[in-house]
C-alpha cells in the first residue's frame, strides 16, 4: 500500500520587489545580482500577512479542490522558519480555519527549508499506519534576509499545503528517502532577527552534497534514472542551484521548467519545493511521474518519487492556479518593502 497526495493548494502574496531595487539601496548592482541568482523578482508579504495567514490560504485552497470532511484530517503540521510565534503553533490556527478542530493532533515543524517535506513524511507514516485517515502537511515561510546581505535578494514568502492519505490519491508517493547530517551551512540563533550563513559553504558541502546524495539514493530505491520522469522539482534557493543539480543528475530543462518558480517569486523557503510541486500538479496528467528533492539547511534532503493517478481528473479546478498567483503582481519599492517587512524601527505604540 502507498500513501500519497489527496489534494494540494498554494498561496503566493502579490507584492514583488526586483533585485535592482534592493541593490540600489545598498550600493550594489542589483540587476547583476539578479542575473547571478537567476531571480527576476521575489514575493513580499503584505503588512497583514504572515506564515499563519499564508498557511490558512494554502490549506483552504487545498480543501476547495475536493469534497473532504475536514474532521477526517487527524493531524496538521506546519513547517516554517518564520512562524509568527516562537511558542503557540501555526497549526492550531489552520485547524480552526479549515474546521478540522478539535479532535485531531497538531504541531509545528522546523528544519529550515525542508520543514514542510518532513511534515509530509510524518503524515505518510500516520496514514500508512492507519492512525489517521488523512494528515495535512504545510510548508510556509515569510523568510527574511538581513539588509544588504545576498539573501535579501532571494528570501521571499509563500506556502503550500498537501493532504496526505492512502485513498483518493491524485498522486501516489511510491518512494521516499532522506539524507541527514549535522552541517552548519545556514542557521538562526534564538532571538536573532536575521539568519546567518556560511557563504560559499552553502553550495557543495551543503545543498549539492545532500540533494545529489539523496537523489542517487532515490534512483537506486526506485530503480530509475532521470529519463523516467516527466517532471522534476528541487528545493530552489535561487535559480542556479537546482538547474546545476538537475544537470548533474541527468535531468533536462524541459522537465524542470514548470516547478522552477524561484525565478519569478524568489525562495519561499519551506514553501519552495511544495509550491513547485503544486505548480506541476496544476498541469500534470494521469500517469505522469514526478521526482521531488527537497533540501533544508542544517542539513538534510527529503526526496519523493510520485506517480499521478486517474483521480487527478476528479478534482475541482476552480480557484486560482499557482501560475495565476505568480502572475498576480504589485511591484513595490525598497522603502515600502522595508516598511512591510518590519525593517524600519518604529516608535513604541502609546498605551
Amino acid at each position, binding site marked *: 500500500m502507498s500513501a500519497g497526495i489527496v489534494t494540494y493548494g498554494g498561496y503566493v502574496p502579490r507584492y514583488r520587489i526586483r533585485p535592482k531595487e534592493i541593490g540600489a539601496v545598498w550600493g550594489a548592482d542589483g540587476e547583476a545580482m539578479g542575473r547571478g541568482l537567476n531571480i527576476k523578482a521575489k514575493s513580499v508579504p503584505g503588512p497583514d500577512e504572515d506564515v*499563519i*495567514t499564508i498557511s*490558512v*490560504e494554502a490549506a483552504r485552497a487545498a480543501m476547495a479542490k475536493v469534497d473532504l470532511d475536514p474532521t477526517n484530517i487527524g493531524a496538521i503540521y506546519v513547517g516554517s522558519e518564520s512562524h509568527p510565534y516562537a511558542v503557540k503553533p501555526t497549526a492550531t490556527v489552520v485547524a480552526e*480555519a479549515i474546521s478540522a478542530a478539535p479532535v485531531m493532533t497538531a504541531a509545528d515543524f522546523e528544519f529550515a527549508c525542508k520543514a514542510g517535506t518532513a511534515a509530509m513524511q510524518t503524515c505518510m507514516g500516520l496514514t500508512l499506519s492507519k492512525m489517521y485517515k488523512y494528515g495535512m502537511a504545510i510548508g510556509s515561510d515569510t523568510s527574511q534576509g538581513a539588509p544588504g546581505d545576498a539573501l535579501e535578494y532571494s528570501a521571499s514568502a509563500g506556502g503550500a499545503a498537501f493532504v496526505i492519505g492512502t485513498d483518493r490519491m491524485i498522486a501516489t508517493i511510491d518512494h521516499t528517502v532522506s539524507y541527514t547530517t549535522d552541517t552548519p551551512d545556514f542557521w538562526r540563533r534564538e532571538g536573532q532577527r536575521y539568519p546567518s550563513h556560511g557563504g560559499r559553504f552553502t553550495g557543495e558541502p551543503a545543498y549539492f552534497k545532500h540533494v545529489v546524495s539523496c537523489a542517487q539514493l532515490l534512483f537506486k530505491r526506485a530503480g530509475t534514472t532521470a529519463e523516467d520522469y516527466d517532471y522534476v522539482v528541487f528545493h530552489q534557493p535561487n535559480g542556479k542551484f537546482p538547474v546545476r543539480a538537475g544537470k548533474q543528475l541527468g535531468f533536462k530543462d524541459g522537465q524542470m521548467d514548470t516547478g522552477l518558480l524561484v525565478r519569478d517569486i524568489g525562495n519561499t523557503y519551506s514553501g519552495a519545493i511544495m509550491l513547485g510541486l503544486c505548480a506541476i500538479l496544476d498541469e500534470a496528467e494521469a500517469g505522469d511521474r514526478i521526482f521531488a528533492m527537497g533540501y533544508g539547511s542544517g542539513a538534510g534532503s527529503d526526496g519523493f518519487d510520485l506517480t499521478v493517478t486517474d483521480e487527478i481528473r476528479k478534482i475541482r479546478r476552480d480557484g486560482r492556479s499557482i501560475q495565476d498567483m505568480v502572475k498576480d503582481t504589485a511591484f513595490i519599492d525598497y522603502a515600502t518593502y522595508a516598511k512591510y517587512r518590519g525593517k524600519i524601527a518604529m516608535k513604541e505604540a502609546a498605551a
Partner: protein
Amino acid sequence: MAIPRFWREIPSRYNLIGTKCGSCGQVDFPPREVCPECGRRSIGKMQRFRLKGAGQVVTYTVIHDAPAQFEMQKPYVIAIIETDEGVRLTAQVIDVAPDEVKIGMRVQAVFRKLGQEGSAGVIHYGYKFRPATETGPIRRP
C-alpha cells in the same frame, strides 16, 4: 489584554459562522440568539450557518486618519459588503488600489491578520475581502 474577547469570536471571524432563523430562514451575521424579524418565535430555533464569503461592495471609504494599530496599512479601504446570502458586514477590501474599488464590485473573503496586542501580545486574525477572481479550469485543455 482582551484575550477571551477575541478568542470567543474565532468561529465567526475565521469561518464566517452566523445563524439562520429556523422560523423565517433569515441569515444573520454575526450569530444572534433572537431573529430580528421573528422575535420570540425564533428563540431556540437559531441554527449555525456558514457564509460562503462571496458578495459585493455596497459602499466603501478610504481611511487616511487611522487608529494607531492600522498605521502600517493606511490608506486602506473599509467597505460594507453584502454577501450572496443577503447578509451585510463591514470589512477591509485589500489587494486592490483604493481608486479601483467600485460600488457593486464582486469580492471574496480571505484570511488575514487583523491586528496584534503589541509585539509581545496575541495576534488577531479574521476576514478581509479581495476582488473576486474569475474561476474556471486551471489546466488549459
